[in-house]
């Protein structure tokens, strides 16, 4: 019973931390695509990186780079979290 209870607590805490990560990463996902690539595209277009207008760059290149990074960051965070709560076995 004792161990079961502990396991339950671990599971709850694990889930909470997982949701916290999502609450940080998903807004970034939203901001680089819907924000920078669409909603604020026109405003960002006044800046340039190389030959790219910035908003256009986010829409056609930048958002994709960030998406890839986001997933690998999540993979790392979760691998650590799995270890912390002993769910990695």
């Amino acid at each position: 019973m004792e161990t079961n209870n502990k396991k339950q607590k671990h599971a709850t805490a694990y889930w909470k931390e997982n949701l916290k990560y999502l609450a940080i990463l998903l807004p970034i996902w939203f901001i680089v695509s819907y924000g920078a690539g669409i909603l604020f595209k026109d405003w960002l277009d006044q800046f340039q990186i190389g030959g790219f207008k910035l908003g256009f760059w986010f829409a056609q290149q930048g958002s994709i780079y960030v998406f890839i990074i986001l997933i690998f960051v999540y993979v790392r965070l979760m691998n650590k979290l799995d270890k912390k709560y002993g769910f990695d076995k």
Partner: protein
Amino acid sequence: MDAQTLTYIFVGVSFAIYIGIAIWSRAGSTKEFYVAGGGVSPLANGMATAADWMSAASFISMAGIISFMGYDGSVFLMGWTGGFVLLALLLAPYLRKFGKFTVPDFIGDRYYSKTARFVAVFCALIVSFTYIAGQMRGVGVVFSRFLEVEIETGVIIGMVIVLFYAVLGGMKGITYTQVAQYCVLIFAFLVPAIFISFQATGNPIPMFGMGDTLASQPDTYMLDKLDGLSKELGFNEYTEGSKSMIDVLAITLALMVGTAGLPHVIVRFFTVKRVKDARKSAGYALLFIGILYITAPAVASFGKLNLIETVNQKDYAEMPEWFTTWEDLGLLAWTDKNADGKIQYLGKAKEGGDALTGIPAFQDSKRGESGQRLVTNPSENKNELYVDNDIMVMANPEIADLPNWVFALVAAGCLAAALSTAAGLLLVISSSVSHDLIKKMVYPKISDKGELIAARLSATGAVVIAGYFGINPPGFVAAVVALAFGLAAASFFPAIILGIFYKRMNKEGAVAGMIVGISLMLFYMLKFKFDFFGGGTKEDWWFGISPEGFGTVAMIFNFIVSIVISKFTAPPPADVQEMVENVRIPSGAKEASGH
């Protein structure tokens, strides 16, 4: 060697590899057939997912579409990649932990209901069939273009190949052929892109070349030049859009969520060993997909610039050889509206627009004064040039005057893209029938061997049906493929997400939500795409959202209906709630099983 011979060699060798892999990795049990035995490495699974995901449309059409839409084409770039973030963060790890074979398996168990399972099977079949018909057509087009056989023959050859390795190898065979197909297709996409980027800007990396200055005019950025030319000819500036913002938002979201809800993509995450492998393979998948997706806009912009510079205000007689090749295939057409022998390529602001009313209708009894093919359906405006989207990728090697082997490579790449996606979809169709319908609903006592036979028979049946649609394409295929995402977004996505993140979610809510979502999407699609229910035009769109973006609205309705109904009905039984808690933690993931 000439291009034709090289193409035969490249395509022949790649097919031989696929068949060899299929024989080596044939499936011996339903577990191998449905989920490749459950022991695929994350890297291999990432590659296979990438090939599975990138269809003929991604490979052949997307760069062309972006080329003509400019900024508006970004909806495809963001939409078809951003979905993987949702998959990795919200779906894949939990579905892997759940550990069954199919998406309807999850829906059926999570919502403890045969009705829910049946609705899910129905949605999976609709989504997969709309998608696969387009793939078989793609195979046919590539064969007819590159190998000069009839489209019908091309479709049949494609059917035989897919049949061979999908039926024999099941998911196991498909996975390892897809790894090979990914390598072929990405190489085939990058090589011409690198050549073209280098020619135009001196920068061999296409995604950077796109933002570089022109080799011929070192003071001018390539994109500025393209913006300038586009404006001069009366088109939108390339880096500006013409769609309304709300529609761009809706389409992007529908594509993202649809991607995350496509059964043939989700099922790939059942094939890895552990939960952490599922997360990691989503990362690899997006990395491998991203390589093509950040190159495509470069191909699109270089292609557009090359096209404008080659054709505009030039005599038809001066056109390079590729122009007439594509004209013969009906993917290019020129109609000399002002009878000056020169090609005028003009956008709306310069009294241009669509050069023809629809696709070219050729009148081949005689040729025009300059030797062009005559069309019978010119439009009223001043634009004289019709260009098919698909030409950008397929004609690029010729437009840029690249060596013959590049041309042959592109042919093999197109086929790899179309075949890999077709195979993945076939597997979903066959497992929906043999596993979800026969094993889980109609005849649960069937033995593993019997189920395997049923799976192979249904895969065969699905290939034949898909081939039929490939040879006799219903006019709406192209229109419907884009809508498959809306259907997936409107049906599966909310049911899966709520199933994981909202423990209180019950069967009444989920079933009602899925039915409302998919019905609403089907209704909107039929009304505005196929003129049912009184039809309607752009002005009648709800909230100004096109049918392509409507999946977003239908999904929101699905969410609302699901949550409201579940609030007013009984909570799910204790064992289901326990299952949800269990799905949320990664340890103790059993290998996928059907029991």
